[in-house]
C-alpha cells in the first residue's frame, strides 16, 4: 500500500475542515468547527492508496462421494478441487475505490462480487453466487423425465402390485435429487450532497434440478421426479430523506416468480383402478408476483420522545391458465368456472412505535402492529375429479383465506442505580380469520426481565426473564364453507386456547481474568387447556454452557455444550368421538464443541484443532385407550467432525496453510431405512436411504498478499 505525500495530506485536512463547517453536525459527533486543524497532516497515518490484495490458492481433496456432506458446500464429489479465493482492492484519489471478492472458485458454491464507487457518494456492486442442494444421490425409478412429463420404458407392462411389475428391475435407474441456485445481483447506492439517499437492488435467480413429488390414484401412488426450473426476480428500490431529527423512506419491493413447467404428467405404472386411467397430471407451482409500496419514518422530538412508523401496501397475484379437471379422456369435460384464477391478495401493514422517557431512568415504549391479508381471489364451485379417476359427487368451493393480525405492546424499562435494568411489558395480540373454525383469537402476555450491568463482576450482563401468556378466542365452530368433516372435539393448535409459560436465564461470568463462562437456560411450555383432540401440550427446554480459557498469550481453549429437549403430546380419535389414542413425541439434541488454538507470534505460526459432536434422538410412542404403548424405533442422527489446521508465515506476505478435516455422519430413519422400491404393494418408492458418510478433506493452500 502506498503512503500519501505530506502536502497531499495537508490539502486533504484543509478540505476536511471546510466540509465540517458545511456538514453541520452537532451532538455526539464533535465538529471542532473552531479548532485549527491546519497542522493535522496525518503524516503518521498509513493512508490507503493504490492497490491491496490477498489471494488464497491451493488444492483440496475429498476422500469420498457424499451427497449430504456436499449439500450447500459443493464438496459432494470424491477427488481434488481448486482452492481459490481472494480479494483485490484499489483506492484512488478523492475516495474512489474498486474491489473484487471471490470465494470457493473451485466449487459449485462459488461466489464473486465486484464493487466500486466513490466513498461517501455512490457504490455500485455486481454479484454472482451459486448454492448447490444435494439431497439424495440415488433415487431409483423407472421413469425418465422430459421437462414436465415422466414416461415409463417402451413396452411397459403394468400390474396390480409393485412386486409384480415384470419390467421394473431392468428399468430402475439411479437419479440424483438435487438442484442448484445461481443468483445474480446488481446494487446501487447513491448519496448526493444533501439529505437524500437512493438505493436500488436487483436480484435474478435461476433454480434448476430435480425435486420429489408423489402421484397417487387413491390407493396407488408413485414417487415422482419434480422438474425444478424456476426463475425468480426481485427489485428493491428506495429513496430516503434524512434530517437531523428523523428520516423518511419511500420504498418499493417487487418479486416475480416463473416456473417453466406448469404441470407434471406421469404414466401410471400400475393396472388402473378404473379403465383408461393410465396417466396422471398434477399442477406445479404457478407463476406469481408480489408488489409492495412502503413509507416509513422516524422522528425525535427534542429531549425525550421518539416516534417511528411504517405503512406498507401490497398485492400478491397469480393468473396462470388453469389446466383441465383431469387428463383422463372423456372424464371431467365440465367447463371450468374461469380459465384462469386471477388470484389476488391485498396486504396492508402498519407499524407505529412511540418511545418516551418521562424520567431519566425510565423509558416507556408503545407499539402497534397491524397486518392484514385480504384474499380477494374469486370463489367458485369446481366439479373436481378425484385422482383422475371419477368426478366427485359434490362440487368443491375454493377457500381464499384472509386474516387480520393486530398486536399492541406496552413495555417499560427502568435503570436501577447500579446500572441494572428492570423491564416489564404487556402484549395483546388479536387475530381475526375468515373461513376457519375460530373467527377471533386473542392473547394477553405479561413478561418481566432483570438484566445486570456488564460491569457487575460475578454476573456481567446476566439476565433472567419470565413470560406468561393466555390465549382464547371465539367459539370453535366450523363455518358452513368448511363443512362438518372434522371431529367437533378437535382444536387446531394455532386456533386453540393456550397457556404459554417461558423462562430464560442467561448468566455470563468471568471467575478469572482468563476465563469466560456463560450459562444459558431456556424453557417454554404450551398447555392447550381446552383441547380434547389435537395438540395437547408441548415442553421445550435448552441448557447451554459455553466457555473460553486463555491459557496463555499463545494458547486458548473454547468449548460449549448444549442439551435441548422438545416433548409434545397429542390426542386422536379413530372412532370420531372422544380421544382414544395419544401420541408422545420426544426430541433430544446434544451438541458439544471443543476448540484449541495456539498462536506463536514470534514465528507467526497458528495451530487449531476443533471438535464437534452433535447427536439427536427422536422417540415416538402411540398409546392406546387401554394404555398400551407402541414405541417406534428411535430416529437417530450422529455428526462427528474434527478439523486440524496449521498456518505459517513463510514470508511477510506469504502464508501456507495445511488442514485435515474429518466428518462422519450416521442416521437411523425408519421412514427410509431398508425401505425398498417395492416395499409397499401398491406404491413405487425411490428406495431412498437415510444419509451416512465418512469423509476426509485435505487441503494445502497459500495466502499471498502481493504489494502488501
Amino acid at each position: 500500500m502506498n503512503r500519501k505525500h505530506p502536502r497531499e495530506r495537508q490539502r486533504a485536512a484543509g478540505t476536511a475542515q471546510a466540509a465540517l463547517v458545511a456538514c453541520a453536525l452537532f451532538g455526539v459527533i464533535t465538529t471542532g468547527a473552531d479548532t485549527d486543524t491546519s497542522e493535522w497532516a496525518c503524516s503518521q497515518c498509513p493512508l490507503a492508496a493504490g492497490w491491496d490484495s490477498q489471494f488464497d490458492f491451493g488444492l483440496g481433496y475429498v476422500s469420498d462421494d457424499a451427497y449430504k456432506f456436499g449439500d450447500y458446500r459443493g464438496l459432494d464429489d470424491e477427488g481434488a478441487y481448486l482452492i481459490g479465493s481472494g480479494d483485490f482492492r484499489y483506492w484512488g484519489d478523492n475516495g474512489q475505490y474498486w474491489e473484487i471478492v471471490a470465494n470457493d472458485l473451485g466449487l459449485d458454491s462459488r461466489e464473486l462480487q465486484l464493487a466500486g464507487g466513490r466513498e461517501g457518494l455512490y457504490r455500485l456492486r455486481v454479484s454472482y453466487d451459486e448454492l448447490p442442494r444435494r439431497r439424495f444421490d440415488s433415487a431409483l425409478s423407472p421413469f425418465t423425465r422430459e421437462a414436465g412429463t415422466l414416461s415409463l420404458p417402451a413396452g411397459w407392462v403394468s400390474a396390480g402390485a409393485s412386486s409384480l411389475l415384470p419390467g421394473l428391475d431392468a428399468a430402475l435407474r439411479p437419479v440424483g435429487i438435487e438442484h442448484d441456485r445461481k443468483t445474480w445481483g446488481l446494487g446501487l447506492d447513491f448519496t448526493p450532497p444533501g439529505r437524500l439517499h437512493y438505493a436500488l437492488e436487483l436480484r435474478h435467480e435461476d433454480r434448476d434440478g430435480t425435486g420429489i413429488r408423489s402421484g397417487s390414484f387413491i390407493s396407488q401412488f408413485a414417487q415422482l421426479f419434480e422438474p425444478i426450473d424456476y426463475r425468480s426476480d426481485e427489485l428493491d428500490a428506495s429513496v430516503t430523506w434524512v434530517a437531523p431529527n428523523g428520516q423518511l423512506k419511500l420504498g418499493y419491493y417487487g418479486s416475480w416468480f416463473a416456473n417453466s413447467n406448469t404441470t407434471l404428467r406421469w404414466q401410471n405404472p400400475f393396472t388402473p383402478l378404473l379403465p383408461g386411467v393410465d396417466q396422471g397430471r398434477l399442477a406445479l407451482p404457478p407463476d406469481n408476483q408480489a408488489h409492495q409500496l412502503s413509507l416509513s419514518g422516524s422522528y425525535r422530538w427534542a429531549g425525550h420522545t421518539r416516534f417511528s412508523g411504517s405503512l406498507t401496501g401490497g398485492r400478491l397475484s397469480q393468473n396462470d391458465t388453469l389446466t383441465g379437471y383431469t387428463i383422463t379422456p372423456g372424464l371431467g369435460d365440465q367447463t371450468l368456472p374461469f380459465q384462469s384464477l386471477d388470484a389476488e391478495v391485498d396486504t396492508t401493514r402498519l407499524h407505529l412505535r412511540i418511545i418516551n422517557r418521562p424520567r431519566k431512568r425510565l423509558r416507556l415504549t408503545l407499539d402497534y402492529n397491524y397486518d392484514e391479508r385480504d384474499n380477494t381471489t374469486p370463489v367458485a364451485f369446481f366439479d373436481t375429479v378425484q385422482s383422475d379417476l371419477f368426478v366427485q359427487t359434490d362440487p368443491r368451493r375454493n377457500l381464499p383465506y384472509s386474516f387480520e393480525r393486530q398486536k399492541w405492546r406496552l413495555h417499560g424499562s427502568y435503570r436501577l442505580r447500579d446500572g441494572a435494568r428492570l423491564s416489564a411489558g404487556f402484549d395483546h395480540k388479536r387475530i381475526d380469520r375468515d373461513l376457519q373454525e375460530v373467527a377471533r383469537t386473542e392473547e394477553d402476555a405479561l413478561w418481566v426481565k432483570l438484566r445486570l450491568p456488564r460491569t457487575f463482576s460475578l454476573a456481567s450482563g446476566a439476565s433472567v426473564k419470565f413470560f406468561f401468556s393466555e390465549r382464547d378466542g371465539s367459539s370453535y365452530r366450523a363455518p358452513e364453507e368448511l363443512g362438518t368433516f372434522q371431529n367437533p372435539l378437535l382444536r387446531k393448535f394455532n386456533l386453540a386456547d393456550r397457556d404459554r409459560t417461558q423462562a430464560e436465564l442467561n448468566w455470563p461470568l468471568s471467575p478469572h481474568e482468563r476465563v469466560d463462562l456463560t450459562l444459558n437456560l431456556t424453557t417454554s411450555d404450551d398447555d392447550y387447556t381446552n383441547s380434547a383432540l389435537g395438540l395437547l401440550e408441548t415442553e421445550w427446554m435448552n441448557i447451554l454452557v459455553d466457555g473460553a480459557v486463555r491459557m496463555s498469550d499463545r494458547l486458548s481453549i473454547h468449548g460449549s455444550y448444549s442439551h435441548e429437549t422438545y416433548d409434545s403430546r397429542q390426542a386422536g380419535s379413530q372412532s370420531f368421538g372422544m380421544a382414544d389414542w395419544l401420541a408422545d413425541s420426544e426430541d433430544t439434541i446434544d451438541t458439544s464443541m471443543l476448540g484449541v488454538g495456539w498462536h506463536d507470534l514470534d514465528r507467526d505460526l497458528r495451530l487449531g484443532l476443533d471438535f464437534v459432536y452433535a447427536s439427536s434422538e427422536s422417540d415416538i410412542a402411540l398409546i392406546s385407550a387401554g394404555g398400551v404403548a407402541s414405541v417406534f424405533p428411535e430416529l437417530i442422527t450422529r455428526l462427528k467432525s474434527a478439523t486440524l489446521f496449521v498456518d505459517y508465515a513463510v514470508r511477510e506476505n506469504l502464508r501456507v496453510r495445511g488442514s485435515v478435516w474429518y466428518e462422519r455422519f450416521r442416521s437411523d430413519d425408519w421412514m427410509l431405512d431398508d425401505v425398498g422400491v417395492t416395499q409397499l404393494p401398491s406404491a413405487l418408492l425411490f428406495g431412498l436411504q437415510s444419509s451416512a458418510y465418512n469423509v476426509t478433506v485435505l487441503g494445502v493452500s497459500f495466502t499471498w498478499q502481493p504489494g502488501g
Partner: protein
Amino acid sequence: MCACLLPLATSSAQQEDQDAPVFSNRGADTCLRCHDEDSEVPVLDIFKTPHGSTGNQRAAFGRMQCETCHGPGGAHTGRVRRGKERPGIRKFGATGKTPIAEQNGVCSGCHEQAIGVAWHGGAHESNDIACVDCHSVHVQRDPVLNKKTQADTCFACHKEQRAESYKASVHPLRYGKMACTDCHDAHGSDSEFELTRDNTNDTCYTCHAEKRGPFLWEHAPVAEDCSLCHKPHGSNHPALLTKRAPLLCQECHSQEGHPSVPHTPAALTPPGASGFLLGNSCTNCHTQVHGSNHPSGSGLTR
C-alpha cells in the same frame, strides 16, 4: 450532508462540547504516537476502510480524524502531572465507562440512514447492545459484513442458534452460504423476530417464492405462518419440520377414516407396511401440501 440524531440520553461528550472542547494538537499524528500496532487494540487497519479515507468528507478521517468518533482528545493527550491519572477519552465497547447510548450515538450520527427507523425500541437496542458489540471498525474486513463470517459474530450471543445450526436439516448458515441478516434485520424491524420483511411468510418467500401462490386451493396454516410447521433455525426432521408426518398433520386433521387412525410401528414392515408411515407419509398422496392450482386439487393430491 450527514444525518445525525441525538441519542436519547444526554451524552457526556455533548456536555463536553458545550464546555469548549479541547482537541489534540495534531490530530491522528498525536494519537498514533501511542496507539499503534503494538497497542492492546491494533488500530492502523482502519486506514484500509472507508472510515480511514481522507478523500471522503463524510468519513471520520475526512473530518476530525480519530477525534471524530472518540471525542476531543485535548485532555487525554495533554501533559499529565506526576502522580495523576491520564484523563480518559470516549472508549467503545461493553466494559468502558462511556454509556452505550453515547457510543451508539456516534455511529448513528453518520449511519442513521443505514440503521433505519426501527433501531430504537428494537430487540438489540432495548438490551443495550452497542454497535461495536457486532461491528469491528479498526479491522480491514468487518466479519459481520461478510456472509461467510457473520454467523460467528451473531452466535457469540445467540448460542442456541449455533447449536441448532448442527441439526440434520438446516439452512446453510454454518457453511457460510447464508447470513443471519438474510432473514433478520439486526438493526431492528417492524415485524416480529426482527425479520427483514413485514412478517414470517414474506421473509420466507424471498427465497421460496414458489410457495407464495396465491393458489386456487390453499392450505390454511401455509397461508398464515410458515413457522406453524417449520423451524427455520434447524430441525432433526426432514425439511425443517417441527414433527414427522403423520403426527404433524394429525395435530389438525381428524376426519373420519385414515386421517384419524393411529399408525403404529406395525405399519413399518410387511405385511403391514403402510404408506401412511413410509416414504413421505401423508404427502405420498397429498403431495401439494403448500397449496395447489389444479382445478381438481381440493384434496391437495393434484
